[in-house]
């Protein structure tokens, strides 16, 4: 049967030609040629009526089958070409995997990020951020906080004294050893009720190693009002811990001593590495101390002009550097002050 043979040849040449098409714009020409109104296939279908009944059925079925097959092949080819065009640079497309035009990106220091995060949490609880001087008088750093000249607490805060004498020839200027030094300044200047947090740099006479640097960061907090209680301190710090360390992190509140509070508190969180079972990081205790706190000592309030019989107050203080170290697993505190871009890029 001539007609059948012709149809089969038509199909194979159409597919061969389709396979050779490499650009989407050439597909239309192929479609017109093999599936268009003037194509051989269309004319065969149109001429079916003239064929004898037997032949008509056979040729008709085959023609329709070939037509559907070619339409499917066309569709598939179009899809392939489209994908290829997206994936690689064609004449008119672009290689989207090439790097973009570079805008320099910068970042805030991880300590800045941490301080901001902590301050934001306390600000949302009604605290205000206050800063004090880094070079401070002995009075604000020590005396006002019950740390007298011969107090053992002075030994634990090796102090860097500044080489400057007052008119009276006294040398009483130092680099503050803790941000608690700002407490008295705040109470002297602000009438209660007070709720403040005081972030900043502090200094110690200490040789550098993986856990010590001579300058680091702390944040202190202070609340003074008529009915401030240790329960409020607990509530405030638990809320901070929940938001900073996570909902499920266990918190421990234990008795501790600081000269400027009474009663005194130390707050610890469940170890982030071992989850409480004990490891090297937490010294096998399962707990990591994060801050010291307590009810502000009545003498400290008195010295700042606040009547301890009328007002109560809580205070807390926390080292900041350890927090990003714990969170990111940084094992050497000196990296925070090393200005190394390979470090800073990671945060």
């Amino acid at each position: 049967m001539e007609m059948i043979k012709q149809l089969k040849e038509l199909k194979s040449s159409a597919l061969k030609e389709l396979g050779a098409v490499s650009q989407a714009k050439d597909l239309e020409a192929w479609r017109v040629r093999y599936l268009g109104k003037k194509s051989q296939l269309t004319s065969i279908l149109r001429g079916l009526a003239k064929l004898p009944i037997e032949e008509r059925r056979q040729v008709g079925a085959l023609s329709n089958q070939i037509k559907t097959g070619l339409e499917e092949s066309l569709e598939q080819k179009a899809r392939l070409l489209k994908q290829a065009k997206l994936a690689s640079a064609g004449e008119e497309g672009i290689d989207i995997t090439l790097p973009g035009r570079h805008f320099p990106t910068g970042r805030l220091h991880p300590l800045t990020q941490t301080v901001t995060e902590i301050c934001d949490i306390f600000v949302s609880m009604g605290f205000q951020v206050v800063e004090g001087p880094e070079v401070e008088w002995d009075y604000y750093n020590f005396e006002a906080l019950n740390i007298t000249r011969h107090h053992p607490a002075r030994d634990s805060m090796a102090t860097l004294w500044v080489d400057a004498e007052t008119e009276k020839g006294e040398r009483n200027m130092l680099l503050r050893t803790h941000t608690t030094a700002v407490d008295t300044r705040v109470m002297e200047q602000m009438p209660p009720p007070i709720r403040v947090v005081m972030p900043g740099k502090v200094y110690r006479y200490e040789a550098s190693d993986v856990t010590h640097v001579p300058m680091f960061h702390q944040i202190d907090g202070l609340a003074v009002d008529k009915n401030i209680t240790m329960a409020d301190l607990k509530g405030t710090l638990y809320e901070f811990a929940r938001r900073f360390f996570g909902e499920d992190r266990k918190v421990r509140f234990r008795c501790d001593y600081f000269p400027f509070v009474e009663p005194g508190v130390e707050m610890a969180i469940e170890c982030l590495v071992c989850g409480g079972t004990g490891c090297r990081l937490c010294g096998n205790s399962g707990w990591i101390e994060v801050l010291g706190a307590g009810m502000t000592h009545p003498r400290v309030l008195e010295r700042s002009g606040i009547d301890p019989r009328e007002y109560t107050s809580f205070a807390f203080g926390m080292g900041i550097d350890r927090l990003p170290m714990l969170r990111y697993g940084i094992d050497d505190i000196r990296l925070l002050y090393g200005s190394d871009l390979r470090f800073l890029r990671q945060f």
Partner: protein
Amino acid sequence: MKVSLKWLEQYVDIDLSPAELADKLTMAGTEAKGWQVIGGNWEGIVVGQILAINPHPNADRLKLPIVDLGTEQQTVVCGAPNLKVGDKVAFARVGARLIDGHSGQIVQLEAANIRGVASNGMVCSERELGISDYHQDIMVLAAEAKVGTPLADFMGDVIFDLDVTPNRPDCLSVIGIAREVAALTGQKVRLPDISYDETGAPIEEQISIDITAPDLCPRYSASLITGVKIAPSPHWLQQRLLAGGMRPINNVVDVTNFVMLEYGEPLHAFDYNRVRGRKIIVRRAEEGEVLVTLDGAKRPLSPDMLVIADAERAVAVAGVMGGADSEMTGRTTAIVLEAANFNPPSIYHTGYTLGLPSEARMRFERGISPELTVPALRRATRLIIELADGKAAKGIVDVYPGKQEPEPILLSTGEVKRLLGVDFSLGQIKTALASLGFDCQEAKSASEVKAIAPYWRSDIGLAEDLVEEVARVIGYDRIPVTMPGGEVPRQNPAPIIGFKQEVRRDLAGYGFYEVITYSLTSLDLMNKLLPQPHPLEPEPLRVVRPMSTEQEYLRPSLRANLLAALEANRRHEEGGIRLFELGRVYQRRPNDLPDEPEMLCGLLAGPRFDESWHGGDEPVDFFDAKGVVEGLLHHLGVEADFKPADDESLNPAKQAAIVVGGKKLGVVGELHHKVIETFDLSEKACLFEINLTEILPFTLEHKLFQPISRFPAVVRDIALVVGLSVTHRQVMDVMTGFPLVTRVALFDLYTGGKLPADKKSLAYRITFQSSTKTLTDEAANKVQQKIIDKLSKELGATLRG
């Protein structure tokens, strides 16, 4: 402080596991940093006694001791040189786990045949038991050890490592810790027997004591013991000292140290026969007085130091260290035992000045109670008589000029509630206080208690102190969790705080990495800037004893540290580097704390854009830095002028002062080539510095909304030719001075070509716009012409053809 559980159990019953006990103490304020179990794995190790020692048939160095274990006898092969018939030893049966003396590994003991003789067990050294590293000899046990008892029962222990807070000198003693444990577990403390027979002559006939500085010595008590025989102390005493971290010396010295660990009262024993004139005088040191202390060092003393002296000379620095001259020797037969109390600041000062840390000094400095002297003295005297065969004199000397009666403190349930935020009943409060040894008396009101602190609690003085005692005994976990009530205080945050944050975020957005460098810096680093050497004018602040010259000065500017950071990063970084620091610098003020202005310093180095397939690796220049400054200031709403500047560390031709409100508040420029060299940078770098504290007020000016014109703008381009010395700023000042001119932008700068050598061409796009009407071309032309006329008249500008 190290505390042995066994020792503790002599004063209080404990039925808690080491972990539970550690937790209780920690929660109540004395942190247990850890504990070490001694003998936790001594299964199969028992006390034995050597009955006989036979020679080994095949080895001269080895012996065959026969060890009695009570139920049986065992023969083992042993090479230790100190085997002695009758000695009690630690015997490990086959199957016991020991530490291998050579490898340090834990091994299980097996039956062995050593050179032809069967050995069914082992006589152990301290190292094999994990007690110490000593492995030369076998360990000889105290004679009182009972044959056959498990070694763990005889000498197993748990040693707690306690962190005693500075307010609790009473807890620097085993009895002090026992009192804590008793209070926390509802037990009672058992105190040791301190009585003894006074068989000697009356003490007053043998020694007199005089305190001439009662302000520095509130109490001095002493006993006298004659006929003592100095010898090594018994095993149990040595063991206690070792557990407490002290080295045994001889029976008398060991007793003084033991009682110090037990009661917390430091004691000192003088050789009675070396105390001249039978006299002890507690006095201030004389000007120029020198004492050779126990350690052999010559110590120059001064009148603010307290000494213990005899009739002729100082024999000890009070409370700090004894003198070599009155020290006990092996031949000492009579001793004066001192238990005294000294003024804490004086001890601190003396110890600090002489550089002498000691266990005694630490206790005196923290203010132990003067009431402690007599019980501790009696306890030590009793022990010395017991262990060194002495005879105690009749009576003691007790000079007590500083006696103070304890003041009762009133505490109400209301005060407890006011501080803790929880209601504890008066009963609960009294029980808690009584458990700690407080004497609780009835007060006038039914909601109050009058509490008198026990004598050992020298830290208690206020109702607040009692509140802490109540809270920690009942438990901090019983305090509820609430949020502060009342009105939220008025917020007036200092504008600088938010401002700094805004500046930081802007710079990070411009591609800068923030660094934080040390505020303390070195002269060497400052000297890398220009002029060299650093003029130190105004003189930067210095610290008195710097850690090192690296950290000697308080930085007068941020730039040296930042350049050092750039230099360090350049060793491993290619491409563009942008760094900034925002922090304080320190400026000396007479008779006051320094000024601490908040400064911003930024650095740009390397290519503007990293070299890539997009091309472009041009190095940054002045205008990149200026662009950052302009962008920042624009965002902050500050209008700045850029004026010629003379910063010596910057390229003289490529720098500008940032002038705001007529004041120079910063600088921007390219680094001077000499600075580039001293910092070992092989490239151009740009720097900017802004005093944020001073610029802040200019950012706070109230902004007013400018209505947006509904009428179309007319845009005109003009190209001017002006002399080389005419600045863009001059042209801008003229153009922006005209009405209807809403925007002027320089879009081309051109020199050379057909222009005369002393001319340049500036091309501007001027936007004219009215807020009230649609501008006609004529109206715009008119203004434009006026602008051109004025530019021509004032700046000699011509239009470019």
